[in-house]
């Protein structure tokens, strides 16, 4: 009885708040964990705008290929996927999919899918694919926290995690539905860098092993792994030059390079590039240089004679450089070491792509970056980045040297190509976090000094001089304290403006699925154009299963994934001549185009036309690229034939070749009868803003099969040849 009476008393007393009072260390841990938890959730939900507005679907073009391959992987298993030869794309060539893709993304999504099925959550693979990118973005924030802790301190880590969770530069490629390689690759990139910096700091073999496996994950995920295999040797070289060679660096780099290289060769697409390609030779050169350094260090330890060692040093360094140079020369001259590929060479020499490779120059993501793109994607971080660099230079260590190098190289590449803003984002967020953390620390330390001064004044004896100095200090203290409070309020105001900007940018600019278009109607209501999916499902349900569809390469992946039909060219763009053939067909007169289409066994032609809706990314606006790429392989196609005084026109003043080419005819067939805008004549093209020149179009070898409700996608059937009598 007594015990029973005592236990409620015990419960009551133990539940009072006094016993809930935690020590400072526990308070700090609780604060950190809760902040990280909130940041994790925030990173996930900030990316869900398009799922809430439209539906859970895959966006853009490339993700449809990834979705199709993931579907294949989950249905047929890993070995079928690894050895897959696809005859449904690039007809009649086919594509070795198993050997020409980066499997990391698909395998990751498939693993998540199988794990969920094992736990008896029977989700569709499409939902897993849509939500993979936000999930990995949340994981990236956690890695950013640990990385920030490594470079500076926990405060910087928390700020870095919060900044990277909502940074528009990262959100643009990791929104829900953007099922692309970068979604997983940025996580792998940051993980590899974190593990490597940790390995250099501790010199431990296990961390170096971890970084090698992180590198393997990155190689399996994205072609941008070339950035890692060049940045890490560059970092090692800078450390060697600044005299920071140590055993830790030796262990870390050797382990990561050798194991990473061996693991990377397991990916068929990469193959033997680590020993054969010019882009990977820097890593090998630094590896050999490290061995030379270690050897010299050992010899110096053995010899006690400095003069002797100096001569030995000179001989060894000269001979090492000579041997390395000769080997590189022989390798390059004999062709064993291939030169830098066009995509990466254009990063070093940005004018190269414009002059030599029109396919690379035509992609809008490959254009160089203007200041407004930087501002749009970074906002406040552009101010904090130089300040963060200053703090890093104040406290130079192996880790801060790394983040400075990563930040500078990635920012330069981001300036060359808009798409690479994504790679620079983690570095910019980390360095900005250092600036924020250091500034806030300075300001709060100003706030705290006032509490210390009266204590020392009271414990020491109060002399006259001491009292006068205390008085002067007290006079400046309130001013300093108020100033510090004002500046802290300013810092929080700037960070809140950053959050508002990021949310607005995400909502307005980066959450459109691209396959579903939206516009504002006359009364401000939202109108949805779902023409693409309408056309692909028409193809799927109304054409024979072995039909072959010819379209421009932009739509290839979507046609194969949603329409389930064979295409001639798709977004992989691995065969320039095949694409040029299609470009030639689109820009020739109907008879020549018919011959080309018969030779390729084409049954249907698909074009995208924005004249009725004012959609500006249609095939007529892309037409000059078709001419350029076609003309690059077939000199019979000449760009000036389609221009009038150097200007591209589709109205009455357009060149006759333009008015009669296949693309023009297919886009504007029957368009001359349509009234598109009140007060304008029939056949008014709303995307170009002109009345078309040739309204009376007759098609001889093709017939119209389907036009979507807003005339955005138009499908034509290729008629079989007439019987000869």
């Amino acid at each position: 009885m007594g015990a029973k009476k005592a236990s409620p008393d015990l419960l009551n007393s133990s539940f009072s708040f006094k016993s809930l009072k935690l020590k400072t260390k526990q308070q700090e841990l609780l604060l950190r964990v809760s902040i990280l938890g909130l940041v994790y959730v925030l990173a996930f939900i900030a990316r869900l705008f398009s799922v809430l507005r439209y539906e859970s679907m895959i966006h853009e073009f490339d993700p449809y290929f990834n979705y199709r391959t993931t579907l294949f992987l989950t249905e047929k298993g890993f070995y079928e996927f690894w050895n897959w030869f696809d005859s449904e794309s690039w007809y009649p060539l086919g594509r070795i999919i198993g050997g020409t893709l980066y499997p990391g993304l698909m395998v990751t999504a498939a693993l998540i899918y199988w794990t969920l099925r094992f736990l008896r959550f029977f989700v569709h693979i499409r939902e897993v694919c849509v939500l993979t990118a936000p999930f990995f973005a949340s994981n990236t924030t956690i890695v950013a926290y640990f990385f920030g802790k490594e470079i500076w301190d926990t405060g910087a880590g928390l700020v870095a995690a919060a900044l990277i969770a909502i940074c528009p530069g990262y959100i643009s490629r990791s929104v829900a539905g953007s099922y692309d390689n970068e979604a997983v690759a940025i996580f792998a990139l940051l993980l590899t860098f974190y593990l490597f910096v940790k390995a250099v700091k501790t010199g431990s073999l296990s961390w170096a092993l971890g970084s090698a496996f992180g590198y393997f994950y990155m190689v399996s995920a994205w072609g941008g792994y070339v950035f890692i295999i060049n940045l890490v040797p560059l970092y090692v070289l800078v450390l060697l030059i600044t005299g920071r060679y140590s055993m830790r660096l030796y262990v870390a780099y050797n382990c990561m390079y050798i194991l990473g290289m061996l693991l990377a060769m397991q990916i068929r697409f990469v193959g033997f590039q680590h020993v054969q390609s010019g882009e990977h030779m820097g890593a090998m050169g630094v590896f050999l240089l490290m061995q030379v350094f270690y050897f010299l260090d050992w010899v110096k330890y053995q010899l006690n004679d400095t003069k002797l060692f100096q001569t030995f040093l000179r001989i060894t360094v000269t001979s090492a450089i000579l041997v390395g140079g000769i080997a590189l020369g022989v390798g390059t001259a004999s062709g064993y070491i291939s030169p830098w590929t066009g995509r990466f060479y254009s990063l070093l020499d940005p004018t190269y792509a414009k002059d030599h490779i029109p396919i690379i120059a035509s992609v809008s993501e490959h254009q160089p970056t203007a200041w407004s793109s930087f501002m749009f994607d970074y906002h406040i971080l552009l101010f904090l980045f130089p300040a963060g660099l200053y703090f890093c230079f104040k406290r130079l260590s192996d880790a801060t040297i790394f983040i400075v190098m990563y930040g500078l190289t990635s920012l330069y590449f981001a300036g060359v190509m808009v798409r690479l803003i994504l790679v620079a984002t983690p570095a910019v967020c980390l360095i900005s976090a250092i600036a924020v953390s250091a500034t806030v620390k300075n300001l709060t330390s100003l706030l705290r000094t006032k509490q210390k001064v009266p204590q020392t004044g009271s414990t020491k004896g109060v002399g006259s001089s001491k009292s006068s100095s205390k008085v002067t200090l007290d006079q400046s203290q309130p001013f300093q304290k108020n100033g510090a409070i004002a500046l802290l309020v300013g810092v929080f105001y700037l960070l809140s403006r950053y959050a508002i900007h990021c949310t607005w940018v995400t909502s307005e600019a980066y959450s459109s699925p691209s396959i579903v278009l939206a516009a504002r109607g006359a009364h401000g209501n939202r109108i949805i154009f779902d023409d693409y999916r309408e056309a692909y499902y028409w193809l799927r349900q109304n054409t024979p299963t072995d039909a072959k569809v010819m379209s421009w390469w932009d739509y290839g992946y979507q046609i194969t994934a949603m329409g389930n039909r064979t295409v001639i060219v798709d977004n992989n763009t691995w065969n320039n001549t095949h694409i040029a053939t299609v470009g030639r067909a689109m820009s020739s007169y109907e008879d020549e185009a018919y011959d080309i289409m018969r030779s390729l066994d084409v049954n249907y032609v698909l074009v995208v036309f924005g004249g009725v809706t004012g959609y500006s990314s249609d095939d007529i606006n892309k037409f000059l690229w078709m001419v350029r790429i076609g003309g690059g392989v077939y000199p019979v196609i000449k760009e000036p034939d389609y221009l009038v005084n150097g200007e591209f026109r589709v109205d009455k003043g357009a060149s006759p070749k333009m008015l009669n080419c296949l693309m023009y005819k297919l886009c504007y067939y029957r368009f001359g009868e349509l009234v598109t805008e009140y007060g304008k004549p029939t056949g008014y093209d709303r995307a170009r803003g002109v009345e078309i020149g040739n309204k009376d179009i007759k098609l001889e070898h093709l017939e119209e099969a389907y036009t979507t409700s807003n005339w955005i996608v138009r499908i034509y059937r290729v008629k079989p040849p007439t019987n000869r009598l």
Partner: protein
Amino acid sequence: MAPRTDSQSLSTGSAMSDTSGESSIDPIFHILRLIPFSFLRPPRLRLKLPSFTLPSPMTVFALILLTYFLVISGFVYDVIVEPPGIGSTQDPNTGAIRPVVFMSGRVNGQYIIEGLSSGFMFVMGGIGIIMLDLALDKNRAKSVKASYATAGVTSIVIGYVMSMLFIRIKIPGYLH
């Protein structure tokens, strides 16, 4: 002073060459000692190999800040796309040519001058934060610290306000 140090270095140099000649393991040195230099006498030179010293961190930082300014101003865009320094439109009423500073219509396009001025604003804001940190350094006079603080705060405020103004002009629907 100079001749004395020269003769000193010469004497030490000759002494060094004697000792190194006896115990050198360098085969090329021995060959060279035989073939031309047993009968040729090298002249006494007063040259020194240029020594390579690493610059201080703050020098490197200044160079990096300059590079950052160039990249952020869209320098690569200027070199490749070659936009005009400043755009121009024709006034519909009077027919006069009016300059247009900000290229409108797209996010990823700029004229040269607008890029450089925006980049300058960003760098100014960054330098403001750096000056704030310098103001909290304990080893300076109070007046210097106060002026650093005011300069820093002014730079940050001006840089931020101008950047916001520029982006509002460039993208008309910003934050609506």
